[in-house]
């Protein structure tokens, strides 16, 4: 199967390891991966901060770049939710024909764990990661996309991995994009609760399907010198016994 990787601007710029891991998993499972170089950003930051005109321009670009692929895989629940949930609402703001483009492209966009479980039908990707891991479901993955237990099913089949239940897992970490700098005090207070819950698990690694949330939680885990690492789901699933 030929799939396009939508890396997302945050992963492209700050977390290229997540992109490399995603490519590695998809190739291991027999997919031919393409990276359309014209891609940039889904427009979520602009739309959710109140700048729909810029957001629609980026959305328009997204639909043009990915229109001819059978499937688009994004290692980000939040950006996948932006395309699938919010693009249809923006359709009225775009030029003529944009709504049709959205209807054509949006349903083909999958978050990584959705693609693995629903499209490829795989829950064991042959990974090996002998560490104690807690999983934070992230709001847009949990409530936006409805990923359910797909990521947990994937993690559950990773050899050597001990999955620890995270108290208050469904609660927001307080990132919220520009919310984290527009309301930094509340954002940090929410993050402190999340960090406390992570520490309570005794996990060595906090995992999620979104690097932006992990950047926020990890930023506080690091500042407080807790020693807990953050890792994107793809980076755990990419680890094999050979590479460990």
């Amino acid at each position: 199967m030929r799939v396009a990787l939508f890396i997302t601007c945050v992963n492209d710029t700050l977390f290229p390891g997540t992109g490399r891991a995603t490519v590695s998993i998809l190739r291991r499972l027999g997919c031919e991966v393409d990276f359309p170089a014209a891609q940039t950003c889904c427009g979520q930051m602009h739309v959710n901060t109140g700048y729909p005109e810029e957001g629609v321009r980026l959305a328009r670009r997204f639909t043009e770049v990915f229109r001819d692929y059978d499937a688009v895989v994004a290692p980000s629940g939040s950006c996948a939710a932006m395309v699938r949930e919010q693009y249809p609402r923006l359709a009225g703001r775009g030029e003529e024909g944009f709504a049709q483009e959205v209807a054509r492209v949006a349903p083909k966009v999958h978050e990584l764990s959705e693609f693995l479980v629903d499209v490829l039908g795989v829950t064991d990707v042959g990974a090996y990661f002998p560490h104690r891991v807690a999983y934070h479901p992230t709001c847009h993955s949990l409530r936006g996309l409805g990923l359910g237990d797909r990521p947990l099913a994937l993690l559950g089949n990773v050899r050597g991995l001990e999955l620890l239940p995270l108290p208050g897992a469904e609660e927001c970490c307080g990132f919220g994009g520009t919310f984290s700098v527009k309301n930094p005090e509340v954002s940090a207070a929410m993050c402190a609760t999340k960090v406390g819950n992570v520490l309570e698990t005794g996990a060595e690694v906090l995992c999620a399907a979104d690097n932006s949330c992990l950047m926020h939680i990890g930023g506080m885990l690091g500042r407080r010198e807790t020693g807990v690492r953050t890792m994107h789901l793809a980076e755990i699933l990419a680890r094999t016994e050979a590479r460990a």
Partner: protein
Amino acid sequence: MSERATGAPAPRALPAEEGGGGRASVTFIGMPRSFRENAAEAVRNDQLGRNLRKATHTIRGKRARVVEELPDWAELREAGRAIKDHTLRHLDRYLLQLEEAVTRAGGHVHWAADAAEANRIVTGLVQATGESDVVKVKSMATQEIGLNEHLAAHGVTAYETDLAELIVQLGDDWPSHILVPAIHRNRAEIRRIFRDRMASWGRPAPEGLSDEPAALAEAARLHLRERFLSSKVAISGANFMVAETGTMVVVESEGNGRMCLTLPETLISVVGIEKVLPTWRDLEVFLQLLPRSSTGERMNPYTSMWTGAVEGQEFHLVLLDNGRTGVLADEVGRQALRCIRCSACLNVCPVYERAGGHAYGSVYPGPIGAILTPQLRGMGSELDNSLPYASSLCGACLEVCPVAIDIPEVLVELRARARHPRSERAAMRAAGWLLGDQARLARAQRLATRLRRLVPRRLPGPGSAWTDTRDLPEIPEESFRDWWKRS
């Protein structure tokens, strides 16, 4: 005391010793502070944080349990949404039907375009009775228009009779939650308020009052009983109005509302026009949705219904617009009018839990307040302009809303209409330009890579909003797109 055409009354000053549970110097309406500043102050208040966390998590858990036990909750919720949408689409017809039915049953119907008109009508009706005291059933609409303050300015004292509203009134405080207005207070604070303030409003608190909930409830019962038996005029809101029969519905937990609805000779109800339902069959849906969503009960203890004027009583219904027609005209924002004021969104909101209700500067706090207040009174003030940003868009509110109001969708829509700071506009334009072309993005990424060792641990200026509490991520040696090109 000044008042505004819309929204609640001007802020009251509070003596310093009344601090404690978060009221201290928290501003309410009309103050030039943003949500961020109000919330930041609340975050620093440990006691407020503990009170709110305990209370919201308790109600949240109760709601989850009684909702899970209904196999048809999703269908009920969809029915609630559909009934409200249908009614709002034909609001003109149902309001006229309601007016006719109420009038036929001996009630008087008054139409109020805004807060000033509603206050004038109610004050005139009270003055016509010759009474200077009125008892009140817990009501959001009368708080929205600042009725108590308006009555006070005209020599009429309004006595709140809902236990939590009594605590708020005695404490010269502001409500901070729709269902539990004194949620920011714990029982030790309530004991102090009762002990110090009850005497100036009527029967004093018993000697040696403890902070046991039963003792506090008994003190309130004795205090209020005197008021019920002596008052000739009552003012209420309503949870629902049934158009086909003209029936008003008030649901409550304490029975104090029923005392007010039945004992006095004159009853005046101030109700938002969006509260109307076409038929009794529709009401059935909401009598299931509301108690489970709000108090986490299968059924609320008291449901009072009355149609027009009952024998020996005069009944006036004041139908309140106060910005609602404007909201109805808005294709995205109108879904906020489906709200049945259950508070489920407040109880699950992580932002409300940290910021507290006062930070929203409105009688409608929390997620629903963040979309309702800017629509009802506009986004002219700095506070109202900041409300659409009082959310991380986590979606917990939408998940629990019994009438499926997509609060995140409305928040995002309102953000597009908000005034944006100039520096932010410039930054967003620059980001849009950079992301508008892959070559520009790649060049910026390479520049960041070259400068990666120069990024300080703590940023100056606006960047400090992040780095005060969180480390920045390390900039990698190579972007993904450069790796892809190379490999």
